[in-house]
Every structure is written in structure tokens, then in C-alpha cells.
């Protein structure tokens, strides 16, 4: 926001309250009420306003207080944000960033535990990224703001408290690149967002058991970084996808298809995909834990693939 006066923020309680997860804390004091705009509770129209402002030359960052609320703005995101560059024959670009926390938290209930990455996947014209560490959150946010395309940046409710030492200076990560978390030889584990941590926890157990998993945080949900993923598959020949979105129509489903289309000959075992159950997230803690993939399941899956 310091570098470019056209960058502004729209969202509920982003200004004086500092953001419900403190992402925009202090920005209103620095940049004023117009650049860090506290909106009424009107997702459909303030997302539309963000798109209109983008058409007119600003670079809004639109926050959904919880990603799930952006379902109300689906029309604006799909028809206007995603498609206007095409239907205007290239005349208008929509350099907006739509971001917010999603994912299953701690007993937040069904409506506040949604994963929208699968819903937005098919929209042509959108790019989607998911951050998972303080380091990649900063780099991806900067890349998303700089992109001329509309980018949906998926954050996770449970990851805001992570602490990590990151460089003070400017750095921009590539929106389309995946991150190699742990190189290995036996199996390629593809994951993103919070499940990365479950995978790494499982990896500790797997290493003790003598396995050598390669863990890749795919980060870019649309498009996939098939270059990095492909190189990994060519090495390990086995793939496990671990994701938090629902099994049906999820990111994993598309990723599996893409891998089969492109890397069939390199596979020695069927691709396994561990996803959340196709249920509304229940409130009870034990049931909620069973909705998402747990490290024990990841270990079992790797053992099965590597048989």
C-alpha cells in the first residue's frame, strides 16, 4: 500500500477494528478511512464495488471476513470478476485480490468452516493460491496484489498464529509455483494450507518407520504447478494427495485428473487422495476431528501406497 496509491482494502471491520483476524491491523491509521474501507455487511455488493473499482483503475483487496461469506458474492466473483476481461474483448482488467480465512477451525460450526477452493475452481479467468506459512503468506499476498488478473487468496483460520522469522525486505513469490517442503524418494505427497502441517507431522512418524516421503505444498490451486509436481512423480512414481476440501469436486479430484492425463506412465500405484468427508462440519470436537484428515490416516495411506 505504501508503494502504490491505487491499492486499497475493502471489508468488514478491516479498518478501525483492525480485521477480525488482525490481518489489516494498523492500516487504517496509516492510510486513512477511504483506503482501508470498513464496509457494511453486504458481501455481494462490496465485492461488486471492488470489481467496479478495479475496472476503473484501482487495485482493491477485498476481504471476506470468513471465506464462506463470499458465497453471497458468488455472482460478482464468477460473472464479473472472472469474465469481464474476456467479454469486453480485453478492454477492462480486474486486478483485484479476494482473500479471507477459510477452512475447518476449532468447533466454529458448519457455516463457518467452509472450504471454497473447490467452488471457485471452474471459474474461468480467476487464479487461486493458498498460503500456509508466514513466509509464503507475505510473498503470495504481494504477488497477488501485483497481478493484473483477479486472484483469490485462501488463508486458514488456524494458521494466523504461526510465528516465523521472515525477511523484512520486499520479496514476491511466484503465484503459479509449488513449494518443495521436504525432498524425498519414496512417495510424493501433495498438499496445501493447513493439511501441510498434518502431513509434516505424519512425515516424522513415517521417517521413523523408514519411509522417505517427498512433501510438496502445491500453493497454486489454479493453475497447478505441474512442472514441480511432474518432476516429483517422475522420481517417486507414487502419489498421495492430502487436502482439506471435500472429496466431491475438490481440488484433489482435479489434481488427480491432471496427473493421470499428464503422468500416467510414471505411476507405479493408483493415486490416493485423502480429503475431508462430504458432510457439514459438525460442532462436537470428536466429530469435527473425524471430518478432516488426521496424521494417522496419512501414515496409513503412505504405507498402503508403498506396499
Amino acid at each position, binding site marked *: 500500500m505504501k508503494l502504490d496509491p491505487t491499492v486499497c482494502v475493502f471489508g468488514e471491520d478491516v479498518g478501525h477494528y483492525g480485521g477480525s483476524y488482525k490481518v489489516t491491523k494498523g492500516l487504517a491509521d496509516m492510510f486513512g478511512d477511504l483506503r482501508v474501507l470498513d464496509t457494511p455487511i453486504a458481501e455481494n455488493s462490496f465485492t461488486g464495488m471492488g470489481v467496479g473499482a478495479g475496472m476503473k483503475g484501482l487495485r482493491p483487496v477485498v476481504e471476506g471476513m470468513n471465506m464462506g461469506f463470499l458465497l453471497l458474492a458468488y455472482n460478482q466473483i464468477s460473472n464479473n470478476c472472472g469474465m469481464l476481461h474476456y*467479454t469486453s474483448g480485453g478492454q477492462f482488467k480486474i486486478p483485484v485480490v479476494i482473500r479471507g480465512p477459510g477452512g475447518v477451525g476449532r468447533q466454529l460450526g458448519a457455516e463457518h468452516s467452509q472450504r471454497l477452493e473447490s467452488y471457485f475452481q471452474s471459474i474461468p479467468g480467476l487464479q487461486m493460491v493458498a498460503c500456509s506459512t508466514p513466509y509464503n503468506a507475505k510473498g503470495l499476498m504481494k504477488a497477488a496484489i501485483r497481478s493484473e488478473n483477479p486472484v483469490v487468496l485462501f488463508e486458514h483460520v488456524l494458521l494466523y498464529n504461526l510465528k516465523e522469522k521472515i525477511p523484512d525486505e520486499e520479496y514476491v513469490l511466484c503465484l503459479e509455483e509449488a513449494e518443495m517442503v521436504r525432498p524425498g524418494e519414496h512417495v510424493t505427497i501433495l498438499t496445501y494450507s493447513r493439511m501441510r502441517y498434518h502431513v509434516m507431522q505424519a512425515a516424522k512418524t513415517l521417517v521413523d518407520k523408514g519411509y522417505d516421503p517427498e512433501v510438496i505444498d502445491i500453493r497454486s490451486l489454479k493453475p497447478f504447478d505441474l512442472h514441480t509436481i511432474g518432476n516429483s512423480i517422475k522420481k517417486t512414481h507414487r502419489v498421495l494427495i492430502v487436502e482439506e476440501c471435500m472429496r466431491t469436486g475438490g481440488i484433489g479430484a482435479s489434481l488427480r485428473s491432471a496427473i493421470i492425463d499428464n503422468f500416467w506412465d510414471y505411476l507405479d500405484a493408483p493415486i490416493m487422495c485423502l480429503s475431508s468427508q462430504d458432510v457439514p462440519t459438525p460442532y462436537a470436537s470428536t466429530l469435527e476431528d473425524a471430518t478432516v484428515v488426521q496424521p494417522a490416516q496419512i501414515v496409513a495411506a503412505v504405507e498402503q501406497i508403498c506396499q
Partner: protein
Amino acid sequence: MAAAILRRVTHTTAAAAAAATPRVSPLPLLARGISDSTDTITVETSVPFMNHIVDPPSRSVTTTPHELLTFFRDMSVMRRSEIAADSLYKSKLIRGFCHLYDGQEAVAVGMEAAITRRDAIITAYRDHCLYLARGGDLVSAFAELMGRRDGCSRGKGGSMHFYKRDANFFGGHGIVGAQVPLGCGIAFAQRYRKEGTVTFDLYGDGAANQGQLFEALNMAALWKLPVILVCENNHYGMGTAEWKASKSPAYYKRGDYVPGLKVDGMDVLAVKQACKFAKDHALENGPIILEMDTYRYHGHSMSDPGSTYRTRDEIAGIRQERDPIERVKKLILAHDFATAQELKDMEKEIRKQVDDAIAKAKESPMPDASELFTNVYVNDCGLESFGVDRKVLRTVLP
């Protein structure tokens, strides 16, 4: 026939004249006999403005012979184009949806006369004439309708997606009401950059019941955005009469805390007056609603005959009593600014120009197969990605 294209400045008031950008008229004025004087005359609007929380502007509108003739010509071009589009649709050269504007021309022309090209206009799908009013040319309009390469959206948008960025015309939207928040966003950017310009955010009586309109209006009023919400009330939301869809069809009052004016949308001078007033108001005080009482002769779209939910007598009656072009014609003839024959010749000239444009548009080829994949993303870093797998599925067209 004079071949020169005349440049002229709209003279609304002296102050506005200074701010107005010169417009190129789409047709040469016949040199002989027609008065192109810029001496002002004053005309009363057909009916007084109805107002809500704001004092209405005066019923007396200043205009010039030159302006009236331009109104006549511009509206005639629009009328002729929409009728030509009707024939093209019936000959299956235009497909899909085609929403025609004939009857409503005064709104587009009057609005354009009150503002500059730095002000923004956004509308829904009945957008052909707004595009022409903003300086769009006939060839690119017809080419777009026929899905050809030289269309204003390269053949990829169609009837509902006309845009003209250099004239601040933001389209062209198919989903009812979705353009209203976009318009408020454009106005937000205008305020953010302190441009001193406004946005005219058009919607219909059907869209007036969309929740996002009230959401956007609330925000526009909170932040004093320079937006004018214009309800083009043609009294029918597709097949539903306004009184069947809206508990309160007084759309100019539905802003509640936002002021509103009801304007005779078939009277181009009243539209001009109201838009000028609204622009000044919006720059000072934030949003205002203009309800344009207008009428469409065609059905909602080409698939709607337009006579199952209204009587032919009603349509004929409006055409008889309130047609915007006839009204201007009567004014011109009454003041002797041109003879009836001269106006007839102008109409013939316009008909020819429209036909020529259609012929030229027909020559434009279909878009190249590669255009399927252009403009999905703005090309950054030379990357083109479409599906999640970054693969482009190239089909070979027969």
C-alpha cells in the same frame, strides 16, 4: 451532401459548456437550409419533475437549434439501428439474446448531452444505444451483434456485452442488478482519485427489487460516492408489470434517505435537465436516484412478442402520444429550424448509413479460432493458463 463531419460542443449551460468535451457527430448535417445556430431557446418540459427529498430543477430547459437537430439525428440513428437489428435477428444473423432499446432513445441521448466522456456510464443488457451515445460506431456494434472479429468486444461478448473503455462506458451486463454495485465501485474510484466526475448507474424497474441495489445505495450514501442511480422504468420487467413486482413502484422514492427525481424519460430535454442537475448534486452531496419514465416498443427481447402482457393499444398509444423522436421533430418544425422535407431527407440519409454499416459489418470475418483462448487472463510473464492443468485444449474447428 456535405461530406465534412462537424465538431460541435454541447451547450447546456455556460458552465457546463466549459467542461464538456467536443463530440464528433455520427452523421454530416445537411448543409442547405437547416439551422445550425447556437442561439439559445427555452422550452418547457412536458411534465414537471416529481421529487423526493430534494428541490427539483426548473421545468425550463435551454437548448439550441443545433442541439435539437443533433438530438433528432442521434435518436433517429438509434431507432433505425434497433429496427435493423430486429431484421438481422429474424434473418438469424444475430443469435441468442437481443434486447432492443427503441422507444427509450431519449434517455441515452439526453444523458449524454448533460455530461462529458470523462463521466462514466454503466448499464445492463439493453446497451446498444448507450454504446452508440458514448461514441461507439455502427460498424463495430453490428459486427459484435453478429459475432464478428471487428465487433467492439472482438465478437466474444455479444449483444449484452458492449463496452467502450476510452469513453468510460462500462457495459454491458447480463445478470440483472449486478451492474449496480459495479457502478458504485467506479464512483468510488472517481472519488478516491478526486476526479470530479460522476457515474451514471443504469438499471430497470425489474432490477429495482434486487437486494444488492439497496446494499450499494447504502454504501454510496455512507461514503458520498458521486453516483447517480438511473432507473429506466419501462414499466415491465420482462413479462411482469411493475405493479405486480414492486410493492412501491415509485422507484424514485425507494432510496428512502437518498433523494430522487422522477423524469419523463420520453422527453429528451427533461432527461438532459435532470441529468445535469443530478451530476451537480452527486458531486456535492453523493448519490441521487433518477427514475426515467420511459417505454420500450419491442418486447423484453427478440423472443418476446411484447403483446401477451400489454395491449397493442397501449403500445400504439405511447407511440402516438409520447414518441421521443416525434416530440423533437414537432419542436423543430414548430420553430422552423428545419423543414419537414429536410428532416425526411435526414432520415433517408441515416437509413443509408445504417445499411452501409451493416453491409460493412457483414464483411467482417468470424473471430480466429485462437481467440477462444485470448483475454481469459491478462498475459503476465507470457503465461497462458486456462484449466488447472495449464493445458489448452485446442479443438480443430470443422
